[in-house]
């Protein structure tokens, strides 16, 4: 729920390099050795595949067309996950809903990463007044509860795919500003950056071609772990009635619709909740694996 920095990477860490192909290979080698992370990766790959090929697995219409006479029907051979409170196929809703939920989560993570990293890079690189303005602004921004921003955006502009991404970006970009700034601060004193600066390269060029690639490791790990958080936060929005407009399925929305029937038809709650837990778990496993693989300190 919070937009606070909860990075799993201690700030005082050495910058991790993420540049040469040989390094990628090395990381992959270490990642592969981690059983938990491989399970996560396989699970995640499976989920992503299912979502990509959702249309071949079960038609979207099954999750849209109502059949109220059969409302809340329990799982059966015909409807694996049963029917929801409008008599719609829950299997189809969960699978197609995942497209929205995961899609929004991934895109929101990327956009908050881009916005936050850019601001953080600018603040860290230029320092002085620029840094002060950005960081103080950020402090103020962070002390406004993010649920307020999110609600306001969604209420004012309507719940569309793009607006949800915008709202979630507002709530999550702050993480990256601090993270990237601290990375930049420790990197800008590094020799090759000084050398580039002496060589007359422009600021933007130095940031993009020298500093950011070196801060990449930390950013990637954080991004992975953020996806899971955004999935949870997004489902909370659905629960508070701020999800996508009906009848489009979405995990949080399905769960909030299920709440009324949690005692009479618990299956409506169970399956989307399982989907969220599985996805968030697998993303977290992969994130942890990446962190361990990129940071040899942690692995014996």
């Amino acid at each position, binding site marked *: *729920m*919070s*937009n*606070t*920095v*909860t990075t*799993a990477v*201690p*700030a005082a860490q050495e910058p991790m390099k993420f540049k040469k192909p040989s390094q990628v290979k090395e990381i992959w080698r270490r990642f592969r050795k981690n059983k938990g992370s491989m399970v996560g990766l396989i699970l995640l790959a499976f989920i992503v595949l299912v979502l990509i090929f959702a249309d071949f697995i079960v038609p979207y219409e099954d999750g849209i067309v109502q059949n109220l006479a059969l409302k809340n029907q329990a799982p059966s051979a015909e409807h694996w996950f049963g029917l929801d409170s409008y008599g719609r196929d829950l299997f189809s809703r969960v699978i197609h809903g995942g497209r929205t939920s995961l899609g929004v989560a991934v895109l929101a993570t990327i956009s908050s990463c881009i916005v936050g990293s850019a601001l953080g890079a600018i603040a860290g690189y230029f320092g002085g007044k620029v840094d*002060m303005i950005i960081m*103080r*602004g950020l*402090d*103020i*921004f*962070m*002390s*406004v*509860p*993010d*649920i*307020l*921003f999110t*609600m*306001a*955006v969604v*209420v*004012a*502009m309507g719940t569309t795919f793009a607006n949800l991404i915008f709202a979630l970006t507002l709530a999550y970009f702050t993480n990256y500003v601090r993270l990237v700034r601290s990375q930049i601060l420790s990197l800008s004193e590094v020799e090759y950056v000084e050398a580039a600066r002496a060589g007359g390269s422009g600021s933007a060029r130095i940031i993009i071609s020298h500093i950011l690639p070196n801060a990449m490791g930390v950013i990637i790990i954080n991004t992975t772990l953020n996806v*899971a958080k955004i999935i*949870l936060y997004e*489902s*909370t929005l659905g*629960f*508070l009635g701020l999800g996508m407009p009906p009848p489009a399925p979405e995990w*949080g929305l399905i*769960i909030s619709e299920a*709440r009324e029937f*949690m*005692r009479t038809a618990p299956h409506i*709650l169970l399956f989307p*909740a399982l989907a*969220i*837990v*599985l*996805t*968030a*778990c697998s993303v*977290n*496993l992969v994130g*942890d694996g990446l*962190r361990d693989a990129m940071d040899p*300190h*942690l692995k*014996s």
Partner: protein
Amino acid sequence: MYRYIVKRILFLIPTILGVAFIIYFVLNLTPGNPGRSILGANASQEAVDQLNEELGYNDPLLVKYVNYMKKLVLEGDFGTSYFTKQPVMNEVLPRFWVTLQLSIIGIIISTLVGVPLGMLTAVKQYSAWDYIPSILAFLLAAIPSFVLGMVLLLVFSLKLNLLPSYGLDTWDAYIMPSLCMAIPITAFNVRFTKSSMLESIRADYIDTARAKGATERTVIWKHALKNALLPVITNIGLNMGGLIMGAVVSERLFSVPGIGALIVDRINYKDEPVIIAGTIVISITFTIIMLIVDIIYAYVDPRIKAKYTRIKG
């Protein structure tokens, strides 16, 4: 150090100014107006316009903002709720107190359970003491808090009839809402403490200590723990801020009159004074908590204390 603290506290002023502006701006974007919300569908448009005028809602954004700030600074008056006609602090403070209590309980549970468990998993890595808490933490961190709350409600209130489902009248009523808030953070603390501990256990100076012949116990308790706890403390502070802001879910589920639910409810009524005052109170708390964290941090690690004299807050 004192200069730093004073500076941080002074920064509350621009924070309050900024927060109030952001809220006026954001609410300006949302549809609806308080006059219509209060009077309902049957009221005439003239009556609605008149009420909005009386409330000062129709003034331009900047005028509203300046007027509000003037009143706040000169008279210490946070305004009157558009909706209930109550002075806003009458509504905000009791509810804030409720949320603060729950958050503190939540933070204590999550720290007292999460941090030691995290240490245990790190120290006993690759054993059952590692796997079971780690996996549990993993699963719990992936469950949305409202699902967790619903399950708690079903199990403890309905099936077992152990805990009241309502409000905060008795001490046991605090259990479920604070658990609902604490569990995700506990899970997070386990994971975070574990990685922080692991890193610190493997750091060079620990190897040195080992090489010097210190027992494993001394190494872990004396050297590794102290270093591992620094990031953990920062996180506890941040969690606290997050808890206060994110309490709305458990407040809704357990019918707890907290500040999160108040703010969210009043957004629909565009009850600007209440939303602004509520947010200001939260921001001040957030700032103070972060300040306390910094101070604790400095106590635990004197190196940082020295740094504050150099770094601008």
